[in-house]
């Protein structure tokens, strides 16, 4: 009987008669497309943790499928389409590079709902979502400035794109809120992922006198160097405490589970809409790993700010904020807009290095 209803459901889908949710005893099929392997211990790993949380939360009411290691472009289109074609009613497409492929498939499958992470293109059946990771970077700036003895932190960036620059600026603003003269040295490694180069950059920064290392690249190599050289560091995407047991102060965590559960519930309730979500610390989408290897004083500063973020009434980019060249970015009391954040292509005041363009 179960099999029959499945066949009927498939037939109904094939005929375009509507979604399978009308068959109340069938689980809702949800698909995920990842850019990396689920074992990357970083970005895709975090999405997969959320998928597992979804399964745990809904039990046999959902059935999830994932496709990993999908490059952008035509491969992404095939992967998303495969899920849409095989009866998945909701597809999470989790990388920026999947934006246009997902949009194309969304147009061909109007009855399937799509969710695209970190992009900006939407359709009637395609929503977008992203995390305000810069909020956590602001907290890290405060931790760094409070804990640092040399008054200088080093920041390893992958590419000078708004996502990375925004994090650097938020870090600088956080640090300046504690120590107005705090210095940040920046190294661009021109790669998201090259453990050797990331390690070399970390060594160069420590050799130049920084005692805190930040990274916006994907391997735990900078943490290992921080551990070796005895300086403080922050993990990226996952809690990497094993790589730096006495050096990792905290780590930036992406927790997609609450969002995924919300959205799947919305599909079940029939209230799903193509929204644009940019969740911060208050939404639970952005988190900091437990604070370790820092003094109670540092912890207190960080926890106070985290609480402010959680209450949802704090925006790090609130005027007066000046650009590096001294011109005004935000007038006194003015809060930044999402457009300004998405297109951020300049350093705030306080950086010595100029931003490559």
């Amino acid at each position: 009987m179960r099999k029959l209803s499945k066949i009927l459901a498939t037939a109904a889908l094939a005929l375009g008669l509507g979604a399978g949710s009308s068959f109340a005893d069938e689980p809702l099929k949800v698909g995920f497309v990842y850019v990396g392997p689920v074992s990357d211990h970083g970005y895709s790993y975090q999405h997969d943790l959320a998928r597992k949380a979804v399964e745990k939360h809904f039990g046999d009411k959902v059935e999830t499928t994932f496709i990993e290691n999908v490059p952008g472009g035509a491969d992404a289109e095939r992967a998303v389409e495969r899920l849409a074609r095989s009866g998945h009613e909701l597809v999470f497409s989790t990388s920026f590079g999947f934006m246009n492929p997902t949009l194309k498939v969304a147009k061909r499958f109007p009855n399937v709902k799509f969710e695209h992470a970190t992009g900006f293109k939407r359709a009637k059946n395609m929503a977008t979502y992203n995390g305000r990771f810069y909020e956590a970077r602001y907290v890290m700036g405060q931790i760094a400035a409070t804990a640092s003895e040399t008054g200088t932190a080093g920041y390893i960036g992958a590419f000078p794109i708004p996502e990375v620059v925004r994090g650097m600026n938020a870090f600088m603003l956080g640090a300046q809120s504690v120590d107005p003269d705090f210095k940040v040295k920046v190294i661009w490694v021109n790669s998201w992922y090259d453990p050797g180069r990331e390690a070399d950059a970390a060594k160069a920064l420590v050799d130049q006198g920084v005692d805190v290392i930040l990274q916006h690249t994907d391997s735990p190599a900078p943490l290992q160097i921080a551990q070796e050289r005895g300086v403080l560091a922050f993990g990226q995407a996952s809690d990497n405490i094993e790589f730096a047991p006495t050096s990792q102060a905290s780590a930036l965590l992406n927790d997609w589970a609450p969002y995924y559960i919300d959205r799947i519930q919305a599909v079940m309730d029939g209230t799903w809409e193509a929204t644009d979500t940019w969740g911060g610390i208050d939404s639970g989408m952005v988190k900091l790993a437990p604070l370790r290897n820092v003094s109670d004083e540092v912890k207190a500063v960080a926890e106070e700010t985290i609480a402010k973020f959680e209450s949802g009434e704090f925006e790090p980019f609130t005027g007066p904020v000046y650009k590096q060249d001294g011109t005004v970015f935000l007038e006194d009391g003015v809060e930044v807009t999402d457009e300004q954040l998405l297109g951020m292509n300049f350093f705030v005041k306080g950086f010595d290095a100029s931003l490559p363009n």
Partner: protein
Amino acid sequence: MGALEPILLTIITASTPLLLAAMGELITERSGVLNLGVEGMMIVGAVMGFSITAMTGNPYMGVIASMFAGMMMALLFGFLTLNLMTNQVATGLALTILGLGLSGMLGEGFIGQPGIKLPVLHIPGLSEIPFLGTVLLSQDILVYISLALVAAVYYFLFKTRAGLVVRAVGDNHSSAHALGYSVLKVRYLAVLFGGACSGLAGGYLSLVYTPQWVEGMTAGRGWIALALVVFASWRPLRLLVGAYLFGAVSVLQFHAQAAGIGLPSQFMSALPYLATIVVLVIISRNLVVTRANTPACLGRPFSPDR
């Protein structure tokens, strides 16, 4: 001196894997075989080095495993190109793709684990000498091997009869064959030596440079090693200069960035490539000599029946 020491140590770490892999490829190419699979052999060496170290707790076992893994990959390449006479360029590229995929599969269970670092060989008395001792005499075994390899390869190629045979096979395999040398045997040995060195270079990455396993951690170093061999015009000493120059410029450009020198980071990242190519081209500007160094039979298949 205080600031110079750590910079030199970083440069040695950055240069050693390039030197190891390139030195192996130099011998392979001198025998007339072009193996573009260096990246693939390296990454399999890296994953095997890491996993065997994690399983046995002994990084030296890892070093041996990485060398062995590189040789296995090279053996496959040798069988395909020397016995079955497949196209060397295509087979080399396939070997790289195979290595990247295979290593991802083999290493899946080891992601997210910190590794054991290959220890520094401390020489009592000598390692404490300021500067000279702390920089040159406080290294792990692979750094010493890589430097010894330069001298050994130089001596072998230009001062021994066996080296002459390798060069002869690379320059004119038909003549070497007519003289009674086994072209296939020489090439097999050269290919295996190349594989061992590439595997060792991979092991250096996952055991010394960044003691961890992550997919694709070679990040193109195999290709840089291949380019170094050509720009060094198949000469071991020039290869040493090239590898260290590349390592030095890539480390120094990070220092320049951190010091806030206002050059575009994209340019800085390209600098190691530019500097190395320019310097090696200047060293090798005598075209006649360069041509004489190029193995004339490079990439050409040999069939003993013909």
